[in-house]
Each structure stands twice: as structure tokens, then as C-alpha cells.
């Protein structure tokens, strides 16, 4: 690559090669550890495979059985949908509420922000154990508090009636810190001029919130919704540590079921089929979100 031979074209090609050189490790990593297993699991989903004997092709049997003979697929899917709805929408409302408060000029606001963020950085297992203690039926703090006003609290995690609700409450608490930060960033990105103009026009606080904050925040809300749905749908560790999917499968989420099939029962074909079913559902929900977003998400510059 001497100076005089370096026409622009050659130079470009050279730089391109260097660029490829730099990204090759990452590309290889993605190909080997993500793309290949993803494609392979698609293949595996059409086989029966216990990892001891070679995979045997069974066509669509795994997928059909999910909806016919499988005792847990529909139930786990339904649990997951209830869990996702139960977690995402309330946690968004709560997060937005707290983000709005923290966006005010209050004392110690940085301290509050840090406190709300603690669950995000705390280890999942620690959070789950903490909630296990709170929910303890005999001397947990929740039932102890209820007892002081004469209410006998249920066995929160021990009965099928309460277990899913209990883990939903925990998941909301664990998730709002992250969403508050996102909402806060969105709120701070809204220009004060709008509020000043509204104030001159005599708008009250609610009108400002409904007519300025909500529309201008809608792209952020949309982001929180989409990532929230995808993330919550794939939740595993928090609930797993707390209940292992029990009692009697009442808190078994779809990823737990997948995990059990693959790594406890070594039914790799069936597990792969579940994985693809989840993939289809998550993609479907996301597409639906994008379609619906046209009705309520407002992008400042496009209008």
C-alpha cells in the first residue's frame, strides 16, 4: 500500500478489509454461538432427541403434541400471559407515577432515584429470598402486619390461588426501577417551553400532563412497553428461585417449562418446539404492539 499506487478505490477496498478484520471475531461469535444454535434448534424441534441416541426425525409431532397431549404447555403459556399482563401494565403506570414525582424539584431527589434503582442492581437470588421471607405465611412481615389489624393472611406462595399474584407483585417491584429511569430520561427530554406556553394559556397540571407530557412521552412509553413485554414473557430466574414453578405448577412460566423439558428431562426436540412457539408468540405480540402504536405513539419531529 504505497502512497502512489493508492487510488481511491484500492484504498477503500483496503479499509473494507481492515474493517472486516476487526468485526470478524464478533461475527464469528454470533454465527457460532447464536445463529447456528438457533437454526439447529429449529431442526431439533422436528426430531425426538434425548442426547443419548441420535435425533430421530418426527416431523411436526412435537408441535402437534404441544396442543394435544401436552399437559403443561397451554397452562404454562396461560400463566405466562397472565404474568406478563399483570406485571407490565401496572409496573408502567407505577413507574410513570414515580418518575413524574422524581422529576419535580423535591429534596433528596437523587437519593430517591438511587433507592428506586436498587432492585435493578441487586442480585436476583437475593431479591427472591427477600420476598420469600416477606411472604412467609407464619411470621413473614406481610402476614404479621395483616395480623395486627386482625386479618389472617393467606399462604402467599403456598396455594395455587395466591402464588401467581404474589410473584407478579414481586416482579413489579423488581422491575420499576429500570422503567423509572427510562421514563425520567424521557420526561427530562421534554422541552420546558411547552409547559411555559401552556401555563400562559392557563392550563392546569392535569391538562399539561395529558396534553403535553403523555403525547411527547409516548415513544418512550412505547419502548418500555415493547421491551417490557418481551422481557417479562421470558422471565425465569426471579420466579424460579422463589417457587420453582410451584405449587402444583401454578407459577410455572413457559421458559421454566422449556428449561425443565430440556435440562431436567432431556427432551430436546420438544423443548426446541416450545422455544419456537414462544418465539412466534413474542414476535406476534411485538408486531401487534407496533401496529397498535400507530394510534397512540406520537413522534415530535414527524408532525
Amino acid at each position: 500500500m504505497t502512497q502512489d499506487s493508492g487510488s481511491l478505490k484500492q484504498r477503500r477496498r483496503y479499509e473494507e478489509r481492515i474493517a472486516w478484520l476487526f468485526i470478524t471475531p464478533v461475527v464469528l461469535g454470533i454465527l457460532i454461538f447464536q445463529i447456528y444454535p438457533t437454526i439447529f434448534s429449529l431442526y431439533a424441534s422436528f426430531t425426538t432427541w434425548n442426547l443419548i441416541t441420535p435425533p430421530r426425525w418426527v416431523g411436526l409431532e412435537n408441535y402437534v403434541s404441544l396442543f394435544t397431549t401436552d399437559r403443561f404447555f397451554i397452562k404454562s403459556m396461560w400463566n405466562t400471559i397472565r404474568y406478563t399482563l399483570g406485571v407490565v401494565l401496572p409496573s408502567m403506570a407505577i413507574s410513570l407515577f414515580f418518575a413524574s414525582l422524581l422529576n419535580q424539584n423535591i429534596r433528596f431527589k437523587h437519593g430517591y432515584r438511587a433507592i428506586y434503582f436498587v432492585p435493578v442492581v441487586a442480585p436476583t437470588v437475593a431479591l427472591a429470598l427477600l420476598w420469600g421471607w416477606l411472604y412467609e405465611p407464619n411470621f413473614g412481615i406481610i402476614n404479621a402486619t395483616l395480623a395486627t389489624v386482625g386479618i389472617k393472611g393467606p399462604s402467599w406462595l403456598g396455594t395455587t390461588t395466591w402464588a401467581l399474584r404474589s410473584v407478579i407483585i414481586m416482579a413489579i417491584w423488581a422491575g420499576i426501577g429500570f422503567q423509572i429511569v427510562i421514563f425520567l430520561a424521557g420526561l427530562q427530554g421534554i422541552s420546558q417551553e411547552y409547559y411555559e406556553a401552556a401555563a400562559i394559556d392557563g392550563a392546569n397540571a392535569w391538562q399539561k400532563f395529558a396534553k403535553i407530557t403523555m403525547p411527547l412521552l409516548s415513544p418512550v412509553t412505547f419502548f418500555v412497553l415493547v421491551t417490557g413485554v418481551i422481557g417479562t414473557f421470558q422471565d425465569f430466574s426471579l420466579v424460579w428461585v422463589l417457587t420453582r414453578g410451584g405449587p402444583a405448577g401454578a407459577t410455572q412460566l413457559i421458559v421454566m417449562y422449556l428449561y425443565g423439558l430440556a435440562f431436567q428431562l432431556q427432551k430436546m426436540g420438544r423443548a426446541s418446539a416450545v422455544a419456537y412457539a414462544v418465539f412466534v408468540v413474542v414476535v406476534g405480540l411485538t408486531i401487534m404492539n407496533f401496529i397498535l402504536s400507530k394510534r397512540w405513539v406520537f413522534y415530535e419531529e414527524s408532525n
Partner: protein
Amino acid sequence: MPSKLSRRTFLRGAGIGAAGMALAACAPAAAPAPAEPAAPVADAPAAEAPAADAPASATTNMVFSSYTWSGYEAAMRDVIAGWNTDHPDVEVEQQYIAEDYWTKIQTQLAGGTPPDVGIADYARVVPYASSGVLLDITELIARDSFPLDDMFPAAVAQYRWAKGDFDSGGDGGNMYGLPSDAQSYIIAYNKTMFDEAGVAYPTDDWTWDDLVEMGKKITKPDENKWGMQYIDPTVFTKGNFLFSADGSNYTPDFKKSMVDSPESVAAWKWNWDLIYTHKIAPPPGAQASTNPFMSGQVAMVVDGVWWISDFASITDFEWDVALYPKHPDTGKRTTSLESDGWWAYKSTQDAEMAWSLLQYLSNQEGQTRFGDLGYVIPSCFPAVGERWYTQKPPENRLKVLDNITQESHKVDLTYYEFWTCWAAYSPSLGVAFSDGADIEAACAEAAQIHTEELTAAWERFQA
């Protein structure tokens, strides 16, 4: 109902780390096989092998593999170093895997690179042996007169399998591994709580009814004191108490569930009654990380013998173990015995060498060494085990051995695809325990599901 974690259930459950992953990609875990955490070959054996004067060139290489937990790896390396003193020219590459052990082994099998010798699982003897991946050591045992007869028969039975059999332990089968321990179940009781309630300690003749009566006197719900922890359904189904009542899990030909037989239902109901009729057991749903016995919440508990080492740390109260109570009608007190062990994979290049290591790990010398290292799991040689059973606390540890010697049964989860069946039918029983739903209806429903699952398992077994 995972009220407490045994080492095994922990291993089955471990793998939380694999959580927030890209979904579709996670299922087969096939690709990352080569990325096994490189086993540190270098350190232990080479350093500890006393044959420093002999030429250090290793002529043979053998791969040993095991799952591991705190401190275990060091103990294991020490035992293998013991074998190495007689085989200085063999370098044992030791692979210790902390999580998802069996998935990794099966990935290795699928890739054609299993270890030579590895830790065995009594619940996998049938699928592994019938798939032809295990080394049949029947003739080697006979040739070298390995003292199989000195071991607990129920321990040996777990590694014996006859071709075509749905379960291990059948007569005339071949041996596919050697047991390394004999873990039974115990009933422990809190002497301090008995004293406070003015209740006499269990005698050698006590019955299920006595247990309930004692529990009633001890139970004080307002003070969060309870007579007895209900027996975890998994522990119960393994045969503890259930067999004493002449209950069973399936017909002898494994074609039909027996969870709904009158004897089984009565036994399940007795366990359920502890919570919902006699109310001497705390309602389920207590914090999973606490053992209600250790926290002084319940006066009696049935659990694995391995809990004794945990219970030994109790300082708040006095405790002891008793013989299982007898069933009032049958007079039986059957405890389940389950044995981890060792086996060799058929693909090994040097069956003689693998057998040599296998023998060492399971013979009295190896097991004594294990016991001395603090890996207390009682040996499957009663003679070796006695070193452990005569220790204290508790005062009457030897009763555990008595119970095994009198009446023990091979743990009842070794038949083909037990875990698949159990995953399908246990929730029916689980609801009865968690919500108090009718136990007889639960048994009937469980039995129906169990029978269907057995039928499906037979189809897969014969495919």
C-alpha cells in the same frame, strides 16, 4: 413442593444462570459443547502423586468426570490421587462440572466424547444401559471377586439391569455401575420441644398413630410450634412410609398406576391429614430456604440422612433420630435407600484401567478415604458405614443403620422415565397439599395421568 433442597434436587434445579437468554437459541445447548470449562489437568494428581522419583512421563490418559459442589472437588482429587499411587503412569484428566451435569454428559455422548469413568445416577441406569452407552462390568466383577455381597443389596440393585426390563434391580441382570453410598431417610425429632410439651420420646415400637398423638400435644399454632412437618410428596413417593402401608406407585408390570389403590390412598391421606385434619403440620408455603426443623418450628421431620450433617450445627435445642414409626396395621417401617455411584462408559479405550479406577472408588479403601475426608455420606458397605453411624450427634445415629438393616427398599424412582411421569402426575397431588383439595380425588386423578404416562413411556422404551 420444594420445601428444602437436597443436594440432588439442587443439582437438578441448578442452572439459574442460564436465565435471561436468547430463547430460541437456548434449547439444545448443542453447540457450546467444546466450550467445556477446561478442566484444570495440571495441578492435583501430578503434584500429589508420590512417585516423584519415577519417570514422570504419563503413558496413559484417562478422563474422569463428576458434578461437584463446595469442597467436593478437592476431596475427589485426593481420592483419585490415592488410586494414582498404584498407577503412577496414568494421568487422570478430571472434569468437574458444577451445573447441568447430565446435559453436559449427554452432549458429550452425542458428540462421541464421553469420559471414561464418571459419577453415576441411579435414575439413569435404565435409559443409559438400554441405549448401550455404559460398560457392562458383570464379568469384571466376577473375575476380580469384587465384594458386591458385602454391600447393602438395595444399593447394588440400583445398578443392576436386565435387558428389556423397565426398571433396574431385576434378578439376573447385569451390572452397569457400582454404588458408592447408601443414603436413606430419617425421622429426626426435637427433644427440647418434646420436653416442653411433656411428651415422652419416640420408642422403638411407636406407630403412625403415636406420632400423630405426640404431634397434637406439641402443636401450638399461635406460637408457630408444630408437631410434624408433612412428608414432602417426592420423599413420600420414593417409598418412605408409603411402602410401610403396603401402598405402591404402580403394578409390578409397570403398566398401570397404583397411586389410587386403597392402601396408597390411605397412606397419602395420613400424610395429608397431618396438615388438614390433625393440623399438626404447618401449612405449606413456608420459605424454601429455611428448614422448619432447624428453625425449631416443627418437632419432627422426615428427610434425607444427609441432613444429619446440617442438623449437627443446631445449638438452640437438643435433637435425636428415631426408628421410623411402624404402620399400625402392617407393622412395617420401610425406609428408602438411594445410592450414587460410579460407572464407566462403553466407549472407553481402556476398559481395564477404567475398571481399576471404578473398583478403587467403590471399594472399602476408597469409601473409607471418602468418609475420612468428611464426605459423610454413609458407605454402602455396612462395615465402613459404621464409622459414620457411631459418630455423634445425634445420640442414636446408629438407629438409622438399624432401620436400613431391618427394612429398606430401593428408592422407587429408578424406572424408565420416572421423572417424566412424576412431572406429569405430581401436580395433582401437589394441589391437595398446597390448597387442601380432597386427597382421594387427587390420588384418583394422579393415577389416571400416571397410567397414561406409563403407557407413553412404554412406547418410547420399546421404540
